[in-house]
């Protein structure tokens, strides 16, 4: 998120509260839990790293909301580098996969039941995201982000369906043996 805050400063120097408002507008319901102080923590770290400078508006008392932040040359370079990066979040499925394998091996639980419970949880999340997406006003930038979350959940549900089929087959073969 540090990179995103830096990149937002590329447009123009800005107050912390203004950055936070822009973040929340882009994130919609996903930005709901961002507390007011967080942006200043991030900005302080960026300042310490020499990526932004902070100018206090003249003649005003020292308060965080009076400060204007701007990119340093190093900050500009970092933004340029960030834009060309192709990093992507890792799909984190190994843990659940190992849970199924371990549960089956030790006969701790029926993997098919574990898959079913996980599916219920993901469907509830899907419902939550979808309702949030439908509730967004027309033209909201956050809709596209919510759509991405929906599609990810759908992919995960499809993988769970594959898990269910595979582990059901294991069950059937065990019964036949």
């Amino acid at each position, binding site marked *: 998120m540090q990179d995103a805050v830096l990149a937002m400063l590329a447009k123009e120097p800005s107050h912390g509260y203004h950055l936070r408002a822009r973040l929340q507008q882009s994130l919609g319901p*996903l930005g709901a839990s961002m507390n007011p102080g967080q942006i200043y923590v991030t900005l302080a770290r960026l300042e310490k790293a020499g990526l932004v400078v902070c100018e206090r508006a003249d003649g005003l008392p020292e308060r965080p909301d009076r400060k204007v932040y701007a990119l340093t040359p190093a900050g500009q370079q970092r933004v340029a580098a960030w834009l060309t990066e192709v990093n992507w979040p890792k799909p984190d499925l190994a843990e659940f996969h190992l849970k199924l394998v371990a549960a089956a091996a030790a006969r701790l639980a029926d993997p098919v039941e574990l898959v079913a419970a996980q599916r219920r949880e993901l469907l509830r999340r899907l*419902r*939550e995201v979808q309702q949030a997406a439908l509730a967004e006003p027309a033209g909201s930038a956050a809709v596209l982000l919510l759509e991405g979350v929906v599609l990810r959940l*759908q992919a995960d549900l499809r993988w769970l369906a594959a898990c269910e089929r595979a582990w059901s087959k294991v069950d059937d073969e065990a019964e036949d043996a």
Partner: protein
Amino acid sequence: MNVVNAAVRVHGLVKNHGRGQGRVRAVDEVDLEVPEGQTLAVMGPSGCGKSTLLHLLGGLERPSEGEVWLAGRRIDTLSERALARLRRRSVGFVFQAFHLVEELSAAENVELPALLAGRSRREARRRASLLLERVGLTGRARHLPSQLSGGQRQRIAIARALANEPLVVLADEPTGNLDTTATLDVLRIFEDLRSAGQTLVIVTHDERVAATADRLISMRDGMFVDDTRLAGTGTGWLGGLIGLEG
């Protein structure tokens, strides 16, 4: 015991297709109660019996065994004629292939069920115009179905299903023929119906459609294998997805 607030209730429901060796039990001793105002999604692989179940609920097919009740009235023992009348007045159907009358305009398609149920032309027209507005197609009232996109046709079909203020709307793969954008339009309408308290049963293979429902039943080989409550389980998960330090 008569459960007053169940819009739909089935008990010991069985439906066999075919005879002798080739006999298939499409629905296998199913019990179900859908309270008034609930939206229920039924999912399962093709051939699991979910469409047959929907047909049985709406009186389009008769069960081999068991009972079907709509709003406290047993319907599987009704005469053909009485059943047809009940379907017209109390059940709204939405199908994958829309099934609109191609020779009639969008508005006329929506008016038709009210006219068939014996309402005046004026009343039918008034209701149709309200419903077209509700599905966002007021501007398409005079178009023929062939002049509309798939998504628009399905929205017309949903408006038609609502024409007689049905006790229950039954939808069979309502987004099966639609692209993503059109699916979202239909989801928006289902969400609107859900919050308006319309009893709704949707058979679907699309998780997004299922996720609009309050409750989800999974079917395999004619039986229910899971019955999950989706509504009222919000965990605030969404708001926690993004932290500034993440």
